[in-house]
């Protein structure tokens, strides 16, 4: 009888420990955070019309003197509505050591599949801008609060400035 009670107690303890361990998954770190609180913000960097490849080519590598085009989209959590210039107070790219790059709105038309890149801004990399990864942030202020975008922390896929050709 004592053995049976002991076995039952051990099994129950193991079950409780497993349940607690199973409920927590401390090793999983969803990018960019477990939840998007007020606004979802998406941003990419593409080439300018002056680039050798032409306009709108996705890349994260730019030389000093080249122009980085930021394109962005934002939507409100809860309602799911894409933000327009009417519902946005400020939307800009913050680049270390540089003036903020204001994003301007252009109505995206009827496209609703994918990110309608309604917001764009450009930054010509100064000739003396330090080479390396640019720790940019995209910051949004709208009627219901704030939103932001940060780059996926994979170094080779982040905005990087290289020397002149």
């Amino acid at each position: 009888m004592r053995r049976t009670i002991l076995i039952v107690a051990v099994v129950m303890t193991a079950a409780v420990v497993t349940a607690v361990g199973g409920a927590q998954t401390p090793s999983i770190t969803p990018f960019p955070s477990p939840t998007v609180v007020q606004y979802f913000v998406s941003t990419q960097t593409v080439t300018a019309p002056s680039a050798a490849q032409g306009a709108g080519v996705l890349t994260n590598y730019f030389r000093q003197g080249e122009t980085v085009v930021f394109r962005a989209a934002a939507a409100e959590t809860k309602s799911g509505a894409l933000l327009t210039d009417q519902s946005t107070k400020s939307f800009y790219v913050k680049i270390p050591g540089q003036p903020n790059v204001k994003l301007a709105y252009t109505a995206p038309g009827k496209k609703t599949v994918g990110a309608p890149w309604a917001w764009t801004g450009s930054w010509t990399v100064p000739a003396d801008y330090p080479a390396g990864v640019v720790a940019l942030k995209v910051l949004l202020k709208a009627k219901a609060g704030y939103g932001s975008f940060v780059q996926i922390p994979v170094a080779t896929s982040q905005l990087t400035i290289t020397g002149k050709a």
Partner: protein
Amino acid sequence: MRRLLLLAGIVALLGAVAAPALAQVPKLNVFLYVDTVNGTRPAAGTKPRPIGCTQSNTFKRGEQVVFRIWGSVADTGSILSTENVKYAYVKVPGQANMKLSWGAHGATTNRVWFWTTPWIVPSDYPLGAVTARIVFKTEDNKFGNYDYDMTIVPNAAKKKR
């Protein structure tokens, strides 16, 4: 009475003008961020790029495309993960659907989780513009769709074997 009717008319007119403008703002159930980077494992005989995992939407035949996606459910704000996604895949025209995997990426000191799937551009894949469709279905039957544009170019420089 006339004033009331006039006022009602003006209000109705303003409403009619404003309604289409409001209706034009698209609403989404699921938000998605999508990009592509070059994978470090291209097809045999295809020269890898000097740096792996750089963003690009132009790929040569034989190169490895890696789709990277993260997103959230609009009404709850929850990040899309295996906890709330029923299925997720990438559809490239002429290819079998590619299931997206939820996993950890990045440096060991700063690993984060998002969705990925690799695709090696077949040696005979049509050149030019191609649009991949990314599809997410959540456990509560909400869809997130995203059309992602890429360009496929010839593989001029093959690695000597």
